[in-house]
């Protein structure tokens, strides 16, 4: 049983990927024992008709998801009337959460609008997936250079929001040392393992972040799904640790 909290539908803007068609992605996930995958959309990075992106995402998860895909709509708070997108994600499509790409949408965590998104998500009980990066800044397309999200203000912003749940995607590799420990000390922030590097990366992450806050995320289809899976084999994890990361933590987080 595996819950993958980090997959994306539709097309990566810069390249065709082996699993960028939803049926193929679902087949790949199921082949490896994934029983639930939290899906955003690559369209959410650059499209301005975010309402259309989210409607397609909801429909595609329903139609092609074979019961394992759960949609997380994109919210771009730099667009006019973004709160209506948030309302639709929650009320019309019954999504359990939203996905944010501050670096693609042109704001920083310290900007007041990010706090507004957090406040509204907390009110509505929506999980916030905050994506720290999509690809390596060193090898990006010259016309699509997108810096990593500066995560330093995160602690201050989530502290005190006791009902808020933030899942940091692709952030565990970029955060190092003290910074990673500080994020780990926030009880309402979870981290996935997709961008972890270094031998025994999951084991080292557990030295900085409590087990209950680590979740399995693959960043598939941009990354090979097997990368995250093999990381779980590389680190020497107890059965309890494996189960917590593979599915228990994410299930508890989702509350279903």
């Amino acid at each position, binding site marked *: 049983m595996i819950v993958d909290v980090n997959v994306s539908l539709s097309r990566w803007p810069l390249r065709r990927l082996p699993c960028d068609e939803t049926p193929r992605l679902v087949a790949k996930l199921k082949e490896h024992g994934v029983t639930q995958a939290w899906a955003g959309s690559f369209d959410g990075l650059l499209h301005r008709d975010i309402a259309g992106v989210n409607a397609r995402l909801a429909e595609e998860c329903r139609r092609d998801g074979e019961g394992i895909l759960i949609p997380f709509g994109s919210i771009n708070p730099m667009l006019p009337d973004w709160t209506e997108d948030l309302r639709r994600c929650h009320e019309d499509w019954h999504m359990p959460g939203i996905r944010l790409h501050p670096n693609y949408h042109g704001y920083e965590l310290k900007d007041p609008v990010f706090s507004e998104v957090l406040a509204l998500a907390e009110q509505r009980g929506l999980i916030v997936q905050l994506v720290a990066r999509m690809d390596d800044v060193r090898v990006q397309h010259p016309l699509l250079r997108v810096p990593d999200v500066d995560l330093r203000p995160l602690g201050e912003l989530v502290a005190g929001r006791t009902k808020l749940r933030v899942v940091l995607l692709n952030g565990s590799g970029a955060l190092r040392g003290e910074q990673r420990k500080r994020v780990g000390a926030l009880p309402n922030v979870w981290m996935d393992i997709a961008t*972890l590097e270094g031998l025994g990366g999951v084991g080292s992450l557990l030295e900085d972040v409590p087990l209950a806050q680590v979740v399995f995320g693959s960043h598939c289809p941009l990354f090979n799904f097997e990368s995250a*899976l093999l990381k779980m084999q590389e680190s020497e994890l107890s*059965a309890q640790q494996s189960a917590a990361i593979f599915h228990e933590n994410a299930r508890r987080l989702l509350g279903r």
Partner: protein
Amino acid sequence: MTLPKCELTRREALGRIGATATAALVANNWVKMSQAADARPKAMIWDAHGHLGGARSPEESIARSLRYADRMGIDRVVVSMGMSFVYDPSPEELRRQNDEVLRAVRFAPDRVFGFVYVNPKHVKASLDEIDRCVRDGPMVGVKLWVAMRCNEANLDPIVRHAVELKAPILQHTYLKITGNLPGESTPADLVELARRHPDASFLCAHTGADWERGIRWIRGVKNVWADVCGSDPTAGMVEMAVRELGAERVVYGSDFPGRSFASQLAKVTSANLPETARRLILGENLRRLLLPILTAKGIRA
């Protein structure tokens, strides 16, 4: 294969994985499946690109890396450079770093291949190090990093000496949109060098990392192999490399311990390839590259 003294046997290591992994992992994991007694014979996995570090000694570093290698079914690893990364090493620093690699090789001679680290800014010292570590020592290849771009003439005597000793050359390459270091080579630089030395074998480390361009740079130059290590596990990399270069010119490497075996192996294990191609990439191509020098040195492989 004899195992170094401190290691678990592979069977013990896998037994432990079996005891702790989830059913899904055991049932679906490619590396694990390939180890099962009744499944296909296990693919030989040789890792073309690794380093030392993150430990108090070379022995401790390589022991730790080999423990993870056991968990991932990796048989042998190439190691180069010492416990600290130095961009532009002096002759003394080169000797110190190569001594550390020699200690790692001595620790597990059946599993660790040493590549001698040289600096083209110090040609004489580099040739001496090649003699000390390869001609007269156990190392089997040459490693060049970021001290000087590899299209420079200073590289020529180093490459000629490597050819005399049948030693393949592992050259770091990167194509950084954020800007390369002053002495950091691109695949284009390596192609210049490789064209001057058609009898030498070059591993293009990282395939430039921006692999869609890196693969194209090296496509027409047959004595350059793509080492797929040290970049994000982006889907489609190995498929493109095989399509454009042929499976015979693609080599698995990780850049451990800074990268995980897992993320880099996944590039190969997840690729939609015939099993024969996968085996070439995981180990057989590197073995073929090293066989002349291994044979000359009487190293069993």
